[in-house]
């Protein structure tokens, strides 16, 4: 997967977690927490969805990389390069 595909994968996960949320104007540089009020339970869900959908493991010490869309995509790019 290339970064644009990873971004779309994250958008799909967020749309699944928060179906009422309008994600078209998501600011990639602002944290999910500030924009969507996601809490620790939601971040755990993003991690579990990544594992379920793409078999990608995110260890607990790396959770802080999932802060915003930009940081998430750059963190996941090397991990998901082999994902088709």
């Amino acid at each position: 997967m290339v970064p644009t595909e990873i971004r779309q994968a994250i958008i799909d996960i967020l749309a699944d977690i928060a179906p009422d949320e309008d994600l078209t104007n998501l600011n990639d540089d602002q944290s999910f927490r500030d924009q969507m009020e996601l809490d620790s339970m939601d971040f755990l869900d993003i991690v579990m969805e990544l594992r379920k959908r793409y078999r990608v493991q995110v260890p607990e010490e790396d959770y802080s990389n999932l802060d915003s869309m930009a940081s998430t995509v750059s963190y996941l790019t090397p991990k998901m390069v082999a994902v088709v």
Partner: protein
Amino acid sequence: MYDTIIIGAGMSGLAAGIRLAHYDQKVCILERHYTIGGLNSFYRMNGRDYDVGLHAVTNFTEKGARKGPLARILRQLRFKWDDFSLSPQKGSRVVFPSANLRFDNDLDLLRSEVAREFPGQIDNFESLIARIVDYDDLDQEAFEISGRQVLNSTITEPLLIEMILCPLMWYGNADSHDMAWGQFCIMFRSIFFEGFARPYKGVRLILKNLVKRYRGLGGELKLRHGVSKIHVDNGHATTVELDNGETIEGKRILSSAGSLETMRLCSDVSAPDTTKAGAMTFIESISVLDREPSKIGNDDTIVFYNDSDKFNWHPPTDDYCDTRTGVICSPNNYVYADEDGKLADGILRITTIADYQRWNDLPDDDYARAKLKWYDRSVESSVRFTPDFRPYVIDTDLFTPKTIRRFTWHDNGAVYGAPEKKLDGTTHLDNLFLCGTDQGYVGIIGAMMSGISMANLHCLKP
């Protein structure tokens, strides 16, 4: 072999089941009763639909709110806000002989009512609110301190203390007289910071959505499948045995049966401590009216009443019921969407404190007679605080602690479970966990939150 076996198909068990099935676990929910819902179930009689537990869904927040338990459970269960089609309350009251406090889903109404009835207490009331905002949900030590003690050190007018406690105890206190500070804060937030709402179609709409989702994810649900034993080997649950003798294997068990009730199932526990069972249980007198309650001047969603300045919250000591305090609920008095229109009938539900043992010990004939007698008495007590609706009644029903026991299997028909909560959900076995009322959260949203958080914590570790 199941990944997780869930005992009980109430709100907490179904919510936990959805979480686990969503993450591809093989899950089975076992329910002893012939229907789902547990305390929050429903039934049909004489062609009419009735709810069992539901007066109001507490923890209500408007569409678009991202904070609070409702928004969290929707995200965790992948529901849209519209899936629960919650309509907000019109307005509610706490009424004692010498004071009346109105409140709705905006805390400012209660603030202004406190200022009107207790002008000297408004600053104290604000400090109480600040303490509730600061309370940390997961601190077991802070949870257990006496709610009355905190109130006494914050508010100096005893009547106001009793009036604040009345609705909070009625909607979620398993203990008698006093209330744990943690439980107080959870209830205060769910009722006064957030609020009341109801789906036009009642609790069945929420349950239907939960079951549909659970089954769609491949979850198994077995009704009329009560668990009679949890077989234990060396601190580990191995299999569950059903009432019909069948045994089922699971890697772990999540039980919403109640703390004591679950211990009783364990093959390694000879005599669980029954003194720790909850005792707060109720009768509910349901009246069907030939007109909307608003047509007789009743626009209240919920009325919490008490007939003296001292709020008495304990099981009756010498009779079947204690009618001095009660709750009057009208499902008609919600602001339903235009397309829903009005409910088919006018309904008033009166809840009254009752004694489980006395009701349970009654032979069938006397039981039927007692139901008629206590319907009359509880309604008679309630009409001191609401317009007299008795001339307009066209049908009635009454359910008792015995009914509640049948739906929930909780000892004593204890509506809010045991006073002692197990916030982390652990037991003496390494693969048996608790969810539901005895874990700590009550109410419809609270119960779902309990199932979700225990499933996440104990059954879904990444």
